[in-house]
């Protein structure tokens, strides 16, 4: 069975980047065509929207400066075909904080305390990176890295382009008492930051910018749930605020009543994530809410966007998960994320990371993925390896 180069090109363009690198050894022509930019673009396009196979984990934002640690772990069953070169991971670990990842590109900022803060987008597999000019508001010397609200979005259709969103807090006395955020968008292809005309008004609460959900042309951010409003305030209960990326309108999206009945509270851990997948036959995307209370994980999905109606789809008590831990799980130190549109709930205790399948209500299959050293409440960023280009200005990483 002879295989023409064209056919091999097509087949290989469906492989994850790690497999492609390994199979360069097959023969000269495979090694050659895998370097071509048409091939890389096709591969990134083919793998767009496919399940992520691994995730970065690092200490919470405020600790990253001291701890300097980034780990990458593969999901169960994906160890063979996913991963990045060790030296790249070490490099990132020592000098950067990973902020977001999309279609194989990773958005980071540098963490060398004495130098200026720099932003870059990189592809760990092709070892190329492209620096993004640091907007003025981030040019201050940072000693802790909280409040850097940056997000990355890659589109399927423009392979050379990517968008980075920055939400700058402005304590605007003119509009006070409401804080507002200026949204700046960086277009990878053009290489410039543009400011959105209308600001993002997140209401009165502090917002949790490190788990944005892109959906329906808007970015959705969940608020915190601290006790600093009176019952009569519209912001008494926590909520989601969405910011439309076309016209800049801010819209509040209510959370399910059951989720907020015990709020505001001193401690309440809620996160929103993408839910559902896009396939060539259907588009079932939505948003899910995960709440970790003192004793259980509960998940709701947004059934109808317009009417903000949610449906509870999953609940599991922490003690029923069967975790083999040395001491009782301290729920306040658990970090979590939902991966692949709701296939898996990935969460971390003090030392270990677990995954729990969400597709079957009865058999909650929990697997231990690995141990970690990222401390309490680590941040998760899911990743899948592609050969996507970093656009203009791409250079090789040291």
């Amino acid at each position, binding site marked *: 069975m002879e295989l023409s180069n064209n056919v091999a090109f097509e087949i290989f363009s469906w492989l994850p980047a*790690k497999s492609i690198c390994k199979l360069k050894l097959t023969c000269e022509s495979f090694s050659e065509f895998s370097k071509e930019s048409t091939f890389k673009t096709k591969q990134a396009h083919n793998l767009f929207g496919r399940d992520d196979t691994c995730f970065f984990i690092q200490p919470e934002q405020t600790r990253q400066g001291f701890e300097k640690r980034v780990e990458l772990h593969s999901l169960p069953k994906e160890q063979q075909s996913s991963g990045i070169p*060790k030296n790249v991971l070490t490099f990132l670990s020592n000098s950067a904080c990973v902020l977001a990842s999309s279609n194989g590109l990773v958005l980071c900022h540098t963490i060398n305390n004495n130098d200026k803060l720099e932003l870059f987008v990189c592809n760990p597999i092709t070892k190329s990176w492209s620096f993004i000019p640091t907007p003025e508001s981030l040019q201050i010397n940072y000693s802790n890295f909280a409040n850097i609200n940056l997000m990355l979005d890659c589109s399927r259709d423009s392979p050379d382009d990517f968008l980075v969103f920055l939400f700058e807090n402005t304590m605007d006395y003119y509009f006070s008492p409401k804080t507002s955020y200026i949204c700046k968008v960086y277009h990878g292809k053009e290489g410039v930051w543009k400011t959105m005309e209308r600001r993002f008004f997140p209401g009165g609460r502090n917002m949790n910018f490190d788990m944005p959900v892109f959906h329906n042309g808007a970015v959705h951010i969940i608020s915190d749930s601290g006790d600093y409003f009176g019952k009569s305030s519209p912001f008494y209960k926590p909520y989601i605020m969405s910011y439309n990326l076309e016209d800049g309108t801010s819209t509040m999206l209510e959370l399910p009543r059951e989720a907020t009945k015990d709020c505001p509270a001193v401690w309440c851990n809620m996160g929103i994530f993408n839910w559902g997948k896009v396939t060539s036959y259907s588009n079932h995307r939505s948003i899910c809410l995960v709440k970790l209370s003192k004793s259980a994980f509960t998940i709701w999905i947004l059934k109808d966007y317009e009417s903000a109606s949610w449906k509870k789809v999953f609940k599991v008590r922490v003690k029923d998960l069967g975790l083999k831990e040395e001491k009782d799980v301290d729920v306040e130190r658990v970090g979590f994320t939902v991966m692949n549109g709701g296939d898996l709930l990935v969460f971390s205790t003090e030392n270990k990371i677990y995954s729990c399948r969400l597709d079957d209500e009865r058999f909650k299959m929990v697997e231990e993925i690995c141990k970690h050293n990222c401390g309490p409440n680590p941040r998760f960023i899911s990743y899948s390896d592609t050969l996507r280009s970093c656009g203009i200005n791409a250079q090789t990483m040291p």
Partner: protein
Amino acid sequence: MAEEKSQASSSKMLTLKASDGVLFEVELNIAKEMKTVQAYIDDCEDIETIPIPNVLGKHLAIVIEYIKKTNEEYDAEFEKQWNMDDLQLLLLAANYLNISGLQECLCKAIAKRIENKSPEYVRKVFNIENDHSPEEEAKLRKEYKWAFEGVDKD
């Protein structure tokens, strides 16, 4: 009196003849999914039997079934039934007949099967010679050492 129903074009039947002589009667709208066949029909309008010289009857049967049934679930189960040789022959058939949905499905399926395999396995499966020089091979092996973690035993 017998009513003469004029045949709607969607229920017109065509005959496809595989390389080993096996004949298949298919509806026109199924045959049209094969762009090569569509081009043939466009060129010679009244043709009843179309020769498909590169595809065996056994594979043409599978291709036709795919076109009739394709949907999300079917795709997912489809590729599991065939061995690697059949998958490759089906891909060649799909390329010749120019059926983009099937081409994609088969490429993905073959990719899935070789994802975790070694270069040696891939060479064997696709009958390719290793034309790297020993220095090149050593260089590549060193550069991509990380990619070899967890390769399936052949």
